């Protein structure tokens, strides 16, 4: 299946914060062009760190890729500034939405288009964002800080679309949203992937949902990938069933924090 070169290849990277805190310990993953790839894992596994390593956003947090490489379209990008990485076509939608609160909805979209060279095409791209998120059109003059959580998430994704990225990194788009809204957002992510041809690397806690839209998935623990495969394969894996989908063999929900969890985890890592 890996006949053509991947759009993104993360090769064995190590990330260290503040020169001492080792968070990613030889992490590798690949994203094929046109796919939606899910990156799953528990709190603190290093999912956000992985995305920031790709998008160049580690620097302001005093984090560094100290080993390994990240290649995008065949070229190494792990030493580039965030601005240059955005220009090359990678755009991260950060965890927690991070809209510009004092800017209007439309100004937020314009900020997303900052690196675009074809300025004349921007008005029609704003309209295009509004076709995905009609609600934003009604709110276009509203200050983004007054939007609801769901509307802000829509704006964060719309803002990313404005940059016309080849690869969109989405960090927990379902965070804090009502189930119905989450479903809507995920449907739109799928539509964007299909209609715009945008490749997506999706970080989620909600494994069930992520595996439903993804073409391929990775599961990480403690700074490494411990399992990978197509959604079908991952869903059938007993460990994934138990810890990420919350199901036991007989199909009952199970607590996330059971002691066994840690035993199994060890097995993955050895």
């Amino acid at each position: 299946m890996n006949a053509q070169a991947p759009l993104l290849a993360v090769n064995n990277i190590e990330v260290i914060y503040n020169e001492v805190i080792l968070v990613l310990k030889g992490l590798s993953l690949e994203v094929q062009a046109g796919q939606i790839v899910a990156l799953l894992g528990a709190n603190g596994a290093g999912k956000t760190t992985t995305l920031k390593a790709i998008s160049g956003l580690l620097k302001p947090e005093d984090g560094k890729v100290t080993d390994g490489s990240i290649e995008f379209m065949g070229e190494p990008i792990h030493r580039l500034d965030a601005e240059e990485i955005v220009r090359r076509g990678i755009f991260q939608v950060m965890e927690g939405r991070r809209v510009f609160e004092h800017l209007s909805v439309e100004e937020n979209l314009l900020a997303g288009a900052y690196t675009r060279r074809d300025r004349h095409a921007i008005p029609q791209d704003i309209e295009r964002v509004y076709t995905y998120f009609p609600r934003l059109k009604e709110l276009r003059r509203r200050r983004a800080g007054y939007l609801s959580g769901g509307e802000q998430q829509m704006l964060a994704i719309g803002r990313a679309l404005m940059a016309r990225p080849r690869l969109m990194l989405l960090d927990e788009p379902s965070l804090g949203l009502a189930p119905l809204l989450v479903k809507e957002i995920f449907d739109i992510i799928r539509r964007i992937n299909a209609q715009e041809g945008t490749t997506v690397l999706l970080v989620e806690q909600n494994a069930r949902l992520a595996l439903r839209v993804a073409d391929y998935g990775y599961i990480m623990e403690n700074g490494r990938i411990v399992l990978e495969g197509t959604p079908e394969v991952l869903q059938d894996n007993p460990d994934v069933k138990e810890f990420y989908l919350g199901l036991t063999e007989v199909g009952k929900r199970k607590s996330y924090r059971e002691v066994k969890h840690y035993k199994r985890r060890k097995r993955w890592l050895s």
Partner: protein
Amino acid sequence: MDRFLQLTITGLSNGMIYALVALGFVIIYKSSDVINFAQGDLLLFGAYLAFAFVAQFGLHWTLGVVLTLVAAVVAGVIIESIVLRPLIGEPVISMIMVTIGLSSVLRAIVNAIWGPRPQSFPAFIPTQDVYIGPAVVGADRLIAIGIALAFLVAFTLFFRFTREGIAMRAIADDQQAALSMGISIKRIFALAWGIAAAAAAVGGIILANIVGVSGDISVLGLRVFPVVILGGLDSIPGAIIGGAIIGLLEAYTGGYIGQGLNLIVPFVVLVLVLMVRPYGLFGKEIIERV
């Protein structure tokens, strides 16, 4: 009544100069959280640059003004990139300390090049008297208000509508998110300093036309603090309205109550305002959704 009108015009013209200097201060504070103690010295520097181009090199004033603005922008960008940029990521307090040092350096440079003696400026803004009803006011005062307002409007439009203006406000809201848009923080900080220096230089040129050049005019630059504290450290409309209020208060107290007091009354008002509105009249509201 005519006295009132005179004082109003004088107060407003000073106030608009304060507003220009304050605008620069606000831009730097908004984008980088740095309190620029050298903002008043940028006004001094701008005034002397214009003096050099127009009086010493004998250039036509239009050319002199253009060159002054260009030189001010360049100076602002250089200051940012060699003095402040190395400190990005360090505690903001270090940057603030550096601007205090910068203030002394700028003053020393001006003193070294042009000397401490006040010099007359070849004013190019017409100074003849203008009669408004019974009142007589200097044309230079009216023109000063006009020029300052034009620049303030231009800067405001820049922030509202241009790509760089939106980027600046985005950085003010959330620096890391702005970085994730591909906005270059370095570039925007440099731009902020360039604009701040240019705005102060416009104020300096207008002031030089009215009172000549001397080291004392940086004292007027110090008025930027009551202005921005009154208007709100991060508000552009606040800088303009705060400038007008402080300028008018000074003129009215100086005219009706007594010279000398005009230096105190604005501060008294400032304290009173802050007791009611601690973030200033237009300070950024903290958005809280419920």
